[in-house]
């Protein structure tokens, strides 16, 4: 978990993900996390969750289980929701990962989903919410106007039972995103 040392993440000099990658200094898995390039040189079978949390110190994706049941660690890989605890690093070469820390824009403007969560006061303990937000972003990318049945396909757990406000927040975010496009 040390920030320095042989297994620390290898940052690539440019922060611009669209530039070609520089010449590899070491064998590894190149991936983009929240628009920054990284190279993972450690164990290829490590789940993405531990890479994010222990190596990149991006702790927005939360630990809750080890087999994808709780959804607390939901992140986007190439825009699609996955459970980071059940996604090995070896699957991520060349992939773009977005975590909750990457949802707001560089100026700190919140994503409509984040704003909707605040407006609906959808947080109780809050621990599952980063995963809920990412699952909602994934849903709204596929369903501009999600029905209750669509929302019910999100299997992320909320131990505190904030499902009602989460449902309202998803609908609010959908409306806000539609307005923004119009």
């Amino acid at each position: 978990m040390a920030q320095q040392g042989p297994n620390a993440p290898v940052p690539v000099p440019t922060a611009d993900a669209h530039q070609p990658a520089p010449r590899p200094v070491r064998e590894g898995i190149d991936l983009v996390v929240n628009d920054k390039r990284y190279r993972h040189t450690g164990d290829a079978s490590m789940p993405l969750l531990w890479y994010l949390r222990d190596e990149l110190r991006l702790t927005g994706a939360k630990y809750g289980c080890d087999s994808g049941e709780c959804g607390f660690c939901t992140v986007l890989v190439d825009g699609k929701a996955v459970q980071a605890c059940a996604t090995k690093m070896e699957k991520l070469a060349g992939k773009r990962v977005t975590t909750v820390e990457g949802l707001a824009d560089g100026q700190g403007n919140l994503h409509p989903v984040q704003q909707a969560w605040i407006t609906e006061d959808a947080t109780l303990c809050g621990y599952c919410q980063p995963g809920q937000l990412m699952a909602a972003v994934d849903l709204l990318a596929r369903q501009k106007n999600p029905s209750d049945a669509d929302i019910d396909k999100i299997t992320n757990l909320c131990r505190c039972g904030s499902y009602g406000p989460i449902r309202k927040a998803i609908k609010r975010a959908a409306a806000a995103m539609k307005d923004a496009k119009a």
Partner: protein
Amino acid sequence: MSGEIQLSRRRFLKFASCAAGGLIIGVSTASALERPAPVALLGDAWSQLGPYLRIAADGRIFIGVRDPDNGEGTSTSLARLIADELDADWSRVIVEPLGLGVEAGNGEPRWTYGRQHSGDADSIPAAWADLRQAGALARWLIFQAAARRLGVPAEQIHGANGMAIAADGRRLAYGDLASAAAALQAPTTAPPVKTADHYTLIGQGVGDVNARDIVTGQLKYAIDQTLGDTIVAVLARCPYPGGTLDTADREAAKRVSGVYDVIDIGPETGQQPGYTPQAPGLAVLAKDTWSALQGRAALKATWKPGAFVETGTGALEQQALAMFDNETVVPSTARDDGDVAAARKKAARALEATYFQPWVAHATAEPPNCLVRLDPDTSVTVIAATQAPRQAYAVVQRLTGFTPEQIDIRVPRGGGGFGRRLHHDQVAEAMLIALAKKPDEIRNRTIRVMWTRDDDLTHDFYRPMAVHRINASIDAKKRVVGWHQRMASPSIQKGRGVPDERLWQSEMMPDALPAGLVPNFRSDWYPLESQMLRGEWRGSPHVTPTFATESFIDEIAHSLKANPLDYRLSLLGEGRQLPYNGRGGPIDTARLANVLRLAAERIDWSRWLRSENGLGIACAYVWGAYIAHAVEVIPTTDGVDVTRVVCAVDVGRPINPTGLQGQIAGATMDALSTALNLAITVKDGQVQQRTLRDYPLANSAQMPNEVEVFIVPSTAEPTGASVMGVPSAAPALANAVFRATAVRVRRLPLLRELARLR
């Protein structure tokens, strides 16, 4: 530049100026002669001010919240109490969690912030009693300063949105007055708190103060934090209560890349559960979580059961029934009015039912974890989600022998509590690892003890399984004249230094309804023996008894061919006060009848008789709060769908209706999820549930789209909120299921039992 007012023998209101220009206020239980010890938020100014606020020169108001927030919303609601008293501008309020406040007393730790506890939903009632005074003193000082500057009497100043306003309309910002206020003489007595007609924030709903940090992933739970160079410890723990290690390949674990060492950790003799590790175990220390997990797998640890092999729930149930049927077994009697035996002999009819409820787990979203940074000679810092920071302190102090000044306990927001975080076995584990002899390369590194979900589900302090049997005696006029309730459970208090005759007190409330409504009433408790560790679970002494009682009242109504709502209202009778030995009493039966009527009205109870959907209702009195749930279910081929849930709640004056609604709705979902599907079971001496597939917390699709919460406006003293939505939800569900399916479910989890019976 400072002053204080004595509120009671040990409690003081204090204020001081701070270097940057500003006013600091606190309520303290410490004496007047204390040494300054800087707190980051206060800069170089006084600390030990207790639950405090600071008005900065730029107008920002910092409010420290003393009670841990594990999702109960106290960061918001406690701060609102102080801010309202001050007529603060809420948009300028910054809320900070206070760490544990402790200093050396006369051989005893002195708790400088007074109570710091989150459990039994008692944060709000406690804060109502004292935190508002901090705001009132700040307002008084600010108004005095404003009066001097404006040349008018202080009585003519009023406050609004962070401005002191004179009768002629001239106004000064609090920030501009803070330094002058801090230089004033203290009033001779504590300024009175506001009357209700002047509340501006209390009763107005507001969202979670941490919402933005949560949705941006910036809020750091304990599990997210590091202190310098941090290593991770994952433990393999004995799965058998009272068992021991058989074999383990330590060398194989050490060969795993990134693993530093393997250390034996176990319960210390003579320590109570919750203050020491639960089970013998091996801690695998590694550079990161993944390496530690792989190291643990490589141990291939095997375990032996102890002399006492834990029996399954079924065997405990048989024990309970045998005791109920054996008149020579003498129970603990919690209450005994009249003569239930005589009432039974005279009864026109008698009813009996037995209810079975399983062990359940807390399964907090954030599993147990603890961060410890130990400098062996000088200090220790502990970061942990806890509901009881003083208990965490007790563990750390005992194991280090440090003085209060050397111990820094930080309490970030926790990912759920529900009673799990009243126990500090994970703190003891982390401390023992920090103190253990370790290789040079990791000596003095920060230790994070990390629990997996498997660890959490198999090593919880479970809510005890319980068997309840109720006998009712009904006279010729269809009145319940006798009620004999018997409960058997393994007591939470067993092994915690509580004498046998008081072991029932963690299991049930002596004056729980229908005590006081039935002339001959008796409630008995029988101990069951189990090695399973157990603990409080979200209002637990109300939870399993209310399921039994409120199910049984429905059964009585059914046998009398009565509408269960009307029957409940007739049982409650005329509005009156019933004595209640416990927090929140007496019980006002009119308030309970009111929430029953409200819940019924909102779900359109008039459909009860004819609707094909099942409607069910239940109510509860929980530590001063009155709650009723009404539930609507539709039978399906494999069970039921819960389509609507209404909850009417009277918690006295609602401090933050938005937060209250969230708490009640969430607790209702928790109770429904638990009642529908959840059970911890024991087989071959160990807990069988290891994943969330085995312990399937309900997801959104399995829950109603929303819980419709109706808050009764009230000016009564506020109670808490976090557990109140639990007890009546499960019986309302079972009662609805009975209407929908004609199957009376007396055993939880409900869906499994319903499938068995249909």
